[in-house]
């Protein structure tokens, strides 16, 4: 993006260091692409979690240490003993050849964990793999992806290179696959996240070098035994690429903001509150599960039909506020021409509700 925009964004963020995108936040671009507030805050690298707290609406998704422990120990387990369990799994799911067991550790470079060094090395090793075929498993490679003009570092759990000349992203998650089924929302989240990695890999190695089939590794049933399932992420890739190209529009969004707008976390809660209100949000109830700002936006959206759920808004004739809807329904509000149909529908609903409730 152009420098002016970058400048505006830095100014908006203020003193605090920029919070970098990661696979999860990039994936979130597809979650509510219509929300200007989220787009701007993410582009500016504002710490939404802190911000939400400062304005008095803390997000409520803390993580239980039990879940974290479980996640880590499961990944450690499937990778233990030179990927012993993974090798067995991938021999089945990807048809790895018996000779394909080579492994390269990219989590650190000779004790050095700086992102630049790790990325350079990851690049060398991954591009090298296609020529020398030394390694099949690349542990925690560090990839980059251009997100709205910023370089974002991404770190998949594992990338597997197959002798048939394609790389496969391997995602290790600790939610269970029970009788070959898993929580659709969790799988969807894993899929879009993996798609981000696939995209980053493709930008590095070329589209035909990276499979659109990622391998999801989860605990089987109620055991710790891992099971691998291939997931086709073509749809996720379509959406993701579309939203990434749309990020260019961040410039127009930023231009639209009042000059001097600042979300510096050191500002008073009041100022932050006011400043936030200047940036338009697109609140829907399911934001609560997805976005740190949700409770702030929900409070703001109180009295709007959208806060009751998008299908409710639809049922209420797409009218903006609850007051309007009821006003039109009981006739105390005069319908503008473009509200005429909504009004008559709402009046009918009100009449019928009254007659039925009376019965």
């Amino acid at each position, binding site marked *: 993006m152009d420098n002016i925009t970058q400048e505006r964004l830095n100014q908006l963020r203020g003193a605090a260091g920029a919070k970098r995108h990661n696979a999860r936040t990039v994936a979130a671009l597809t979650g509510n692409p219509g929300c200007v507030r989220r787009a701007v805050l993410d582009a500016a690298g504002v710490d939404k979690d802190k911000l939400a707290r400062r304005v008095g609406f803390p997000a409520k998704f803390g993580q239980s240490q039990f879940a974290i422990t479980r996640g880590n120990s499961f990944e450690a387990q499937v990778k233990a003993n030179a990927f012993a369990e993974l090798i067995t799994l991938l021999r089945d799911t990807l048809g790895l050849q018996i000779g394909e067991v080579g492994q390269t550790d990219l989590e650190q470079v000779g004790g050095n964990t700086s992102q630049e060094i790790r990325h350079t090395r990851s690049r060398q090793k991954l591009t090298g793999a296609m020529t020398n075929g030394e390694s099949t498993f690349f542990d925690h490679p560090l990839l980059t992806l251009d997100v709205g003009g910023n370089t974002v570092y991404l770190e998949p759990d594992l990338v597997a290179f197959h002798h048939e000349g394609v790389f496969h992203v391997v995602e290790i998650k600790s*939610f269970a696959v029970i009788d070959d089924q898993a929580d659709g929302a969790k799988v969807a989240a894993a899929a879009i996240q993996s798609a981000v990695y696939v995209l980053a890999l493709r930008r590095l190695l070329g589209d035909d070098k990276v499979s659109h089939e990622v391998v999801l590794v989860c605990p089987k049933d109620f*055991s710790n035994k891992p099971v691998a399932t291939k997931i086709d992420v073509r749809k996720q890739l379509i959406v993701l690429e579309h939203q990434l190209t749309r990020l260019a529009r961040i410039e127009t969004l930023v231009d639209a903001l009042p000059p001097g707008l600042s979300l510096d976390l050191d500002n008073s809660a009041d100022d932050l509150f006011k400043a936030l209100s200047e940036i338009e949000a697109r609140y829907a109830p399911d934001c609560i599960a997805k976005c740190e700002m949700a409770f702030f936006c929900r409070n703001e959206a109180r009295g709007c039909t959208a*806060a009751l759920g998008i299908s409710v808004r*639809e*049922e209420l004739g797409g009218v903006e506020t609850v007051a309007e809807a009821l006003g039109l329904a009981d006739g105390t509000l005069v319908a503008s021409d473009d509200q005429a149909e909504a009004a008559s529908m709402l009046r*009918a609903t009100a009449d019928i509700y009254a007659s039925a409730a009376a019965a």
Partner: protein
Amino acid sequence: MTAISSYARARAVVAGRAFSIATRRHVHLSDTPLVFVPLAMAGEASAPLAAMIGTQPDKPTLLLVPQPRNRDLRFGFAASLADIVLDYVHSCSQRVEISANEQVFLDAPQLLVPNAAGVGFVKLLGRSTRYRRTTGPYPVPPQVPLLGRWLTHLSERSEFAGSSALLAMTSALGMHWATGQSALEDANLAALLGWIDPPDGVTGPDAALAAEDPLIWPPAGPSTDPAFDNEILAPAIRAWTDAATDSPKRHRALNTLERALRGQLEPTWQLMWRAIDVLRRLPAADSVDTRWTTDRRDFSRYHQYVTDGGLPQARRDGAVAAARKLRNLEREQDLYDATRALEDPLVMANYRITGAAFQGTVVQVDRDRRVPGGKGRAVTRPLIVVSTTDPAHLAISTKVQAPTRSGQTGTIVQIDRQPDTTLVTLELSGGMTAAKVPPPGTVPEMDEHITYTSAYPESFRKVELPPPDQTPWTHGGPPKPYTPTNDDAQEVWE
């Protein structure tokens, strides 16, 4: 969402309290429901942590697993839970009646959990226990696999529209009241009930807001508040694990755990019983009993099956089982939707708004009208005209019925839309006896206030499916019959 519930939500926002979307109760409530509030450990697939269970508000039993990662302790939990559930199941199988020449118990188990996730927990717990072996590797107490079958039975039954065998309280309340918040937020039992039945002097929205503070209202489970996990549960579990067996330290640790978990469960336990009272205040709809009979029959059949030593439910449906189940689910869904509307004007209201039904006044009756019938001879086909202000989007020749006159079908002959009213002309057939002149009362009278709907229960003809062992090639051929394997039993639960 429907137009009615959406409108009611809007009203609720302004009024600060929930609005009715049903005038009658459409779920059955047993005199002694088994209320079950489970908690699970985060990050694990159905690792029970604790539960409060019982049939009486003042006598809950608290079960807990001091170290949920310990497999034996989990099965200990399952065993104690089994004792309670199986006793309850047994108590339901005491009195029988003979209906449609089969033995049907007069009672059936009814399990009430706080929310949809609770139903999911029951399903998983059933799945994780029903294949356990009582001998060989990893043996478990005999009642555990039995528990698994019953929990599985209940959760499968709960997939049927109108079944009350296993209810999520949030859904039970949600089908009778609309709140001023989103359906997503209604999944919080405390919040939902806060809108429907707020404590004195508190408005719905405030009650709902308070319900979101885990310190005031702990989550209704099965997942716990992360802060509780990290700050209280984890240290308590560690204390218990580190303490030597039978040491005073361990006893104390157990007490701490018990106090902490009781504190998380009790509020929801109270909510559950409050919710039950709220629901009991509504008069039950007529067909609630009929549907409960279906639940009882299903229970009786499965009870018999278990007694005869049938195998545990398969992991997944085979092709034929799946097709049959889908058909049954669809049949019960249609039946349920239609009957609910016939029995409850507020439910019917949804059909009136979409124009699939209409309510109005009879303004014209041609009672003795006769037309040539199929085999040449004349048949009685009265014409009536109903004047309505409802949208009434019905195509000509659509068949409709009146809730009050189930035996009789009307066919839309003409719809005449006038500025202030719509005149619907109907040709009636059936419900008039064979007499040339319909006996009085069999045809709607002038000025009668009447509702007609195009959505009414229709007789289903049951499709015969091939027996599983003759599954055709189009569906992968006959499946291997399910036989329990060692894997089932050895599948380590940790």
